[in-house]
């Protein structure tokens, strides 16, 4: 990715992806829990992860995606991946 994304941009895009994925206009916060609050199970998290990969043009490990518990976990994972990509 040519430009380094800000944390705010990453957060906004991830929230958009989650809302589109779940099909509802949700009130998300970084603390929103993927499984308990949004009923996104481990397989669905992989599906969500692939959408995130395509959006940010990055590669994420399936086991890390499966272990993501909150929106914040996804944000941190993408932030780390984009920083690594641009290092």
């Amino acid at each position, binding site marked *: 990715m040519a430009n380094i994304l800000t944390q705010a941009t990453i957060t906004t895009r991830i929230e958009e992806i989650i809302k589109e994925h779940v*099909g509802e206009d949700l009130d998300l916060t970084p603390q929103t829990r993927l499984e308990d609050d949004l009923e996104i199970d481990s397989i*669905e998290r992989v*599906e969500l992860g*692939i959408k995130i990969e395509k959006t940010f043009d990055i590669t994420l490990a399936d086991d890390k995606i499966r272990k993501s518990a909150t929106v914040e976990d996804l944000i941190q994972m993408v932030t780390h991946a984009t920083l690594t990509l641009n290092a």
Partner: protein
Amino acid sequence: MTSEVKATSRIVITGIGIISPYGVGSDVLWENVIAGKTAIQPITSFDTDHIQCRVGGQLADFHPEQYLSSRTIRKIDPFSSYALITTQLALQDAGLMIDGKKPVWSQQEQGGNRIGLCIGNNLGGWQYAERELRNLWKTGPREVSPYMATAWFPAAVQGNVSIQFGIKGLGRTFLSDRASGAQAIIHAADCLRRDRADIMIAGGTEAPFSPYAALCYETSGLMSKQAINHSPASYRPFDAGHDGLVAAEGAAFFILERAEDAQQRGATIYAEIAGWASSYDGYDLVKVAPDGERYAAAIKQAMQRADKTPEQIDCVFAAGSAVPAEDLSETKAIHLALGEAAQQVPVSTPKAAFGNLFGAATPLDMSLALRAIQERVIPGTLNLEEPAEGCDLDYVPQTARSVEKLDTCLINARGMGGSNAALVVQRWQS
């Protein structure tokens, strides 16, 4: 209640859910079949150039998003969607849903432990699987849905339905070709008799319209060859022009209970499943045994279990594959099982009008049999104009036949290679 009492319990049907090529619900199925309207049309869901059977009973005016969230639909094959919707309809019909969303047992601790599920299916979720295989070969593994692992295999329905409705008792998926649904209903009835559950949900589901699934059936040699001309009259059970079956999609599920339990909760009882049995020809992988002896054995055993003589059978819903050798063998089996009474018993295969739903074929037949008993009307066998040589029963051709007495129906089921089953359903009399 002692187990001895339950071993002799009568098994009744208290709920029905149907998706047929005519649409959602048992009324639309019955009305169209009785009106003699065909649901067989040229297949539009995929290119049929590679097969001869180019017509089928595709779902018309069916919108799964009216019943399921887009999020759920994305994760499952249509055969699971059909099962989820028809199970919900059956539970609602049986008065077992609260506010239309949760089953009554969800409010009881461990309430789902005595609820069981038996599913008949034949092909699995090939619409989903083929799409994902195309993604794999065209663009690579990252384009394959992670739900592939849980969407395509025949038992996927069992998982989806049990999770959706909190069913935590026994569960089985039956794959016996066109007898799968019959085997599911038989096992469910047996489980109630054996006191292994208090409520059994049983039926079948099928979504056969995808290029590979259709090709698999085509190579079996069982599909209609005249359907290459896109004729809606290609499915011709027992007719001189029969040359194989035509596929259809949909599902039918029933709620089964012991009669005493159904009465205690004040449920409406549609009918009683009085007898059932199954057998195998042990003859060939695809062909059925020409003599029909093992098929007849299943029919006789089902009648014995129901305590019925051949003279007490008012109507036969034949499997009627329209495969010439199978039509002849079934005719022989009915003769062997019913003896002299075979000449007087009306025989019909209403599925000629809408297609053979494979794993859901018998459940659809059973839903029509229940309505036939209620209305005292036997649906006709569309496209049966001149019986084939050797097919010499009292078939009900083309149009429905009203009868004075219709209390007991025999429902035949037969899958590839002679996987035979028979059910006897009768008017409920407490």
